[in-house]
């Protein structure tokens, strides 16, 4: 969630009330934003060095509250200090709109562009800074780090339309970037900003493209190289009177949302909001932009009342929704419907359920009637594998072993190499983007977690007896998700002696509890009708030679190998930094379902 810092005194002046921190916190809570911090209560030197700020967390879909102007406006409307303004377009007196022609080559890199002109805007320091900060917040959030949308703002009096939006090879684009003095071409700009903390992270968006997007005025002056940087020529200052905004994008919906937000937040400081004429015939995107008409929706009175548990009249609904910025009128055609005008600021409203939530907020979430409809009946049931797992857990604990809960993700080495096991490539689920080497794969055995747990508890008195019942994961191409989990039970004992008989005894105990009787290998192999388990010596490099056994079971005439136990090989002990002998047991529980 984005956090917006606003000047406390200015906001309270806008709200016409001196709130205490607690009162303002309460207002935020009710409205659904969150007061993160009031710096007047802070003792940090950087906070004391500036006028008190309120740091407010904004829900990620409320793009209309990403700056001081938006927070003040929405709260004023909520507190009924004003109604939401109607934003309207005013063409210039001459009737001649600024035009922007989009060339077809832009389809290769960043095909969409929109824009607007703010005439006779009055900036001061606070407004100017807020204007810049809002663009930054929009770039971070809605625009996904400028990949989807990016904004360029220009002093219209320094440039001359008509404008063109083109895509050219980097070498053919040459200009002085913002706040620089040197002329550079597209390629040089990439090199120049490569190490730049702020801009460096956006270069990848266009760097390897054969053509870069670029906006020119009629004198072939470069306005901007979206989504990287503007030209220095059209730089905005506190004295700028007329602002030309261009917005380039990959996403048709978001480009207009961004346009709406800039107009709604800063159009109020301008004398007029002037549309521009966009010429883009190749992709049928020729139009006048922006369109500031509210979006017309309908909402059902019964739906609004039923879901909120209220029973209020359409006019009451209308009054409440007005506090959230809507204009609501009863439908002319159907008394059960309301016509709802959704203002350009409310891009988050997609469905009547969004209107319903706003009704609940305006009413007050915590004042809604709290009645549980007494009609649903239900019959509980546990997931069979969890029920089985719990039986094994209780029996293991009752046998004197302690349950541990290591992580499911582990390194490739811990899961394979350290256990003297080989990765055949088709077994373990591999992660594409882990932040550390600790998380490379989903474990295919419970042993690494148990051994790491013992290793980090070396200060504990021996013997250490631990167990885990949990899932491991495998690649399984027959499944929709190409993977499957498997519930395992594993135990490990570390002591002055190997503890081999201990894990063996635990296995016997568990089998007894799971109603599987002990057989000799001869009995198990000879008689298919005889149900039970037996163990056979195996050669397994995880374990000391001659001291490991496979666990076999006959369930309903089907033979399974469900696991293995043994004394860990000293090289395994060394890798996991275990000072004493360790014996382990691991079995698959799925066959007992």
């Amino acid at each position: 969630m984005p956090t917006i810092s606003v000047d406390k005194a200015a906001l309270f002046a806008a709200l016409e009330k001196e709130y205490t921190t607690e009162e303002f916190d309460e207002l935020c809570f009710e409205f659904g934003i969150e007061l993160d911090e009031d710096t007047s209560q802070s003792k940090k030197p950087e906070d004391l060095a500036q006028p008190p700020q309120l740091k407010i967390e904004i829900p990620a879909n409320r793009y209309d509250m990403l700056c001081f102007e938006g927070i003040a406006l929405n709260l004023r409307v909520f507190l009924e200090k004003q109604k939401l303004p109607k934003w309207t377009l005013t063409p210039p007196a001459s009737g001649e709109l600024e035009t922007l022609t989009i060339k077809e080559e832009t389809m290769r890199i960043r095909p969409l562009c929109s824009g607007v002109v703010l005439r006779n805007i009055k900036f001061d320091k606070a407004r100017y800074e807020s204007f810049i900060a809002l663009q930054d917040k929009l770039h971070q959030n809605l625009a996904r780090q400028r990949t989807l949308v990016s904004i360029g703002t220009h002093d219209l009096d320094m440039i001359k339309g008509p404008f063109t939006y083109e895509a050219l090879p980097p070498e053919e684009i040459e200009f002085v970037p913002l706040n620089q003095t040197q002329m550079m071409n597209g390629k040089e700009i990439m090199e120049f900003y490569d190490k730049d903390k702020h801009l460096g992270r956006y270069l990848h968006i266009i760097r390897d493209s054969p053509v870069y997007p670029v906006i020119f005025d009629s004198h072939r002056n470069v306005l901007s190289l979206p989504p990287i940087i503007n030209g220095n020529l059209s730089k905005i200052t506190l004295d700028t009177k007329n602002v030309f905004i261009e917005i380039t994008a990959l996403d048709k919906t978001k480009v207009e949302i961004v346009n709406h937000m800039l107009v709604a937040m800063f159009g109020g400081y301008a004398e007029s909001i002037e549309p521009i004429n966009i010429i883009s015939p190749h992709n049928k995107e020729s139009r006048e932009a922006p369109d500031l008409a509210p979006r017309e929706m309908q909402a059902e009175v019964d739906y609004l009342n039923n879901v909120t548990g209220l029973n209020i009249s359409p006019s009451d609904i209308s009054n409440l929704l007005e506090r959230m910025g809507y204009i609501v009128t009863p439908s002319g055609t159907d008394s059960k419907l309301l016509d709802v005008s959704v203002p350009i600021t409310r891009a988050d409203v997609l469905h009547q359920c969004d209107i319903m939530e706003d009704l609940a907020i305006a009413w007050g979430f915590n004042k809604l009637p709290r009645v549980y409809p007494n009609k649903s009946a239900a019959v509980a049931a546990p997931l069979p594998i969890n029920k089985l797992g719990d039986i094994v857990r209780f029996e293991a604990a009752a046998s004197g072993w302690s349950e541990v809960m290591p992580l499911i993700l582990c390194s490739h080495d811990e899961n394979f190499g350290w256990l003297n096991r080989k990765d055949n490539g088709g077994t373990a689920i591999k992660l594409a983007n882990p932040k550390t080497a600790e998380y490379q794969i989903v474990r295919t055995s419970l042993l690494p977690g148990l051994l790491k747990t013992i290793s980090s508890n070396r200060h504990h008195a021996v013997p250490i007896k631990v167990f885990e019942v949990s899932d491991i994961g495998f690649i399984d191409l027959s499944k929709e998700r190409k993977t499957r989990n498997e519930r395992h039970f594993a135990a490990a004992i570390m002591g002055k002696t190997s503890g081999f008989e201990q894990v063996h005894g635990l296995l016997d105990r568990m089998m007894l509890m799971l109603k599987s009787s002990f057989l000799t290998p001869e009995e198990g192999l000879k008689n298919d009708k005889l149900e039970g388990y037996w163990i056979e010596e195996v050669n397994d490099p995880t374990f000391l030679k001659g001291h490991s056994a496979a666990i076999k079971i006959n369930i309903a005439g089907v033979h399974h190998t469900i696991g293995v136990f043994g004394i860990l090989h000293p090289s395994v002990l060394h890798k996991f930094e275990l000072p004493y002998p360790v014996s382990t047991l691991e079995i698959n529980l799925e066959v007992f379902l």
Partner: protein
Amino acid sequence: MAGRNRGPVPVPLEAQNRNLTQEVLDALDIKSPLQTSEDFPSIPQPEIKAALDRLASRSMVQYDTHETDQVILTKESETIVADGSHEFKVWDAVRQAGKIPIKELPKVVGADSAKVGQGNAFKNKWIKKDGDSLVLVAKEVKDTTKDILKDIQETKSLSDTKLLNDLKKRKLVTTSKVLTYTVTKGPKYAKEMPVEVTDLTADMLANGAWEMANFKPYNFNALGASQNAGTLHPLNKVRQEFRNIFFNQGFVEMPTGHYVDSGFWNFDALFVPQQHPARDMQDTFFISDPPKADKPRPDPETEAQMDAMEAGYKRLFATPEKKETKPRNYEEYWQNIKEVHQNGAFGSIGYRYPWSEDECLRLVLRTHTTAVSTWVLHRLAEDPRPARYFSIDRVFRNETVDATHLAEFHQIEGVIADFGLTLGGLMRFLEDFFSKMGIEGLRFKPAYNPYTEPSMEVFGYHVGLGKWVEIGNSGMFRPEMLEPMGLPKDLRVYGFGLSLERPTMIKYGVSNIRELLGHKVDLGFIESNAAVRLDKN
């Protein structure tokens, strides 16, 4: 309580090769009562106390404890007792020399004595100045300071409190508390400790020796024998409490047995747009191998588990007339999801972006178990009816690890589907749910979540922390999520969730999640953690 003695105290104890218990018995035979301060002055107090306790626990002696202040000489005063006071030394030096230049005095008696002693000797009128030199006044003097200190050394006390304070100020004495005992014979006094048996044995029962045996008293102040007990993990103990709450409310457990899910089930079907920050590489673990999921399709194995769990429900609510069920159409579901994202549908204008099939089929480590709830709700569309589901299982976030964040944690999730549900009903349900963990008076804050509308953060007042803390998230699933499944418009669904770790940490005062989950958890913590009863403190 590691380190404390367990079980009966061993007897007899010998200290410094002396059998102190026997000495006390011997002394009492001659003289009763005893004063330990007089009769055993050289034995350290803890040792004499141990011997007396041993005897007292067998009723062989009785004793009273006295606490007294003892006055003890400092190093300086011990020198005074041996060599005389500073003023005496000065007087004596002058007496021997007849006349000493003031400058020379430190050389004769030492700097300390010269400084303090000269002034006192003037005050006592023992010496006087004669020009730059000191000469004698008194022919004979009485060294009172030395006498007083010597007296103190012998009696370890001083009744004149004014003088005592003065000596303390002059750093000549210090005081300390001393425990002494007055000992008398007890009802079972004997000249020797009787032979004792430590325990009742099978042999004693067989030969009747138990009747005459003198049992050694049991030390009830120590812990009993260690149990070498096995134990369940604290986090799983809390999980069990939550499971019980869900079972008591008629919830069916969801089949969460797959850590890997497709973008479809984890995000798209939940109406999370493909450009949502949650789908960022910074937040979600993507899978590199295997590369890609299949489109959603029937899953007979999981289906069978659900059928088994819901058999009870079906039996109980069976009616004579046959209920019509509508088989699921996975292709239609897929197309509906595409449509509601890309162009809008089901009364929603949608997100209006080009929806990518590849993005939808990317495999991820599930970021929430709501992915499973989605699957279960789609299944419900075959036979839409009131239903309650829950799960508690592991989820994964590609987060930077710190005290409150791990890349893995457990999500507790509950889902209730019914006709005519209201938002206030969800609040009521959650009030009841959280009251079972002893949290009352919930407040609800409007919040944003892509798949619920309304969305509410749940706050409970934490008495220990003295503030409101967020304890969970909740909401009603969006029509854009439910209607593409084929669920009827009037079937509404609550969803609520919280992590298993957070309430456990708050409840048990654990400040670092790594002390609770993962391989770094202290086994001692696991072994000693009390049984969990969420309704009790």
